[in-house]
């Protein structure tokens, strides 16, 4: 995971300011949705929003990801079905008296280059049926843990990655 805690360099300070403003506005909305509106909460909200914005800018500088709204919508529409399949699959195996598991590892060569977009894809893939990326091999491929190595995990990951790449890419 290539995580940098340095503040992004101010080579493009207008871009940074615009990114900071958008994110701070987003975190304000998130605070209002979660905590509701109350004048007494204002100091806590201000600290939380400022802290969240700072951390967010450190971890993902503005312009790092190119995001396609249509691609994200497609990803979001696909997600509930996948979540149901993943949950049903695990529940069925867990509750079956015979415990039908064939756990093991498969290697998957992702098309996404190493970076934050690939990390995002790995996090998403860990919510998908049967697959759990656990790290990168020395040759740059992904090591993926599978509950049942009889399942076509690589094909499934490739399909998932194609949808993900239309939504988010490293810029």
């Amino acid at each position: 995971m290539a995580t940098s805690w340095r503040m992004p360099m101010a080579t493009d300070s207008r871009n940074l300011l615009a990114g900071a403003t958008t994110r701070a506005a987003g975190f304000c909305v998130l605070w209002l949705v979660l905590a509701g509106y109350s004048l007494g909460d204002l100091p806590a909200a201000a600290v939380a929003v400022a802290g969240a914005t700072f951390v967010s800018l450190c971890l993902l500088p503005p312009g790092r990801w190119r995001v396609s709204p249509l691609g994200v919508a497609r990803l979001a529409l696909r997600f509930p079905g996948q979540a149901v399949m993943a949950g049903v699959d695990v529940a069925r195996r867990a509750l079956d008296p015979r415990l039908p598991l064939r756990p093991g590892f498969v290697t998957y060569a992702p098309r996404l280059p190493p970076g934050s977009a690939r990390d995002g894809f790995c996090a998403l893939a860990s919510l998908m049926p049967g697959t759990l990326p656990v790290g990168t091999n020395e040759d740059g491929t992904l090591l993926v843990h599978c509950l049942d190595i009889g399942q076509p995990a690589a094909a499934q990951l490739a399909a998932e990655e194609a949808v993900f790449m239309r939504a988010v890419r490293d810029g």
Partner: protein
Amino acid sequence: MRVLFDSFTVLAVSAGAVFFLAGTVGLLRFPDSLSRLHALTKADNLGLGLVVLGLLPQATGPLVALKLITVWLLAQLAGAIVTQLVARAVRRENQEA
């Protein structure tokens, strides 16, 4: 209409509880740490999703509904990321052993 909504809530929340139970059973029965991670993330995420879905008709306003969905999304995000971190830690430990 009320009865319909309430029945939906009972059904969806019960189904959610079944998936939480299945996730916990998996946590106890699955043979290794990585398999257990599958059980925790996938079954519990679906369980929470169904509980949230079931509670939506009981929400007193759109803001409460939005809050429920936001909590679910945050749990998904946290679950996916923590799973990645735990999986990498398990792998490191296996390599050192």
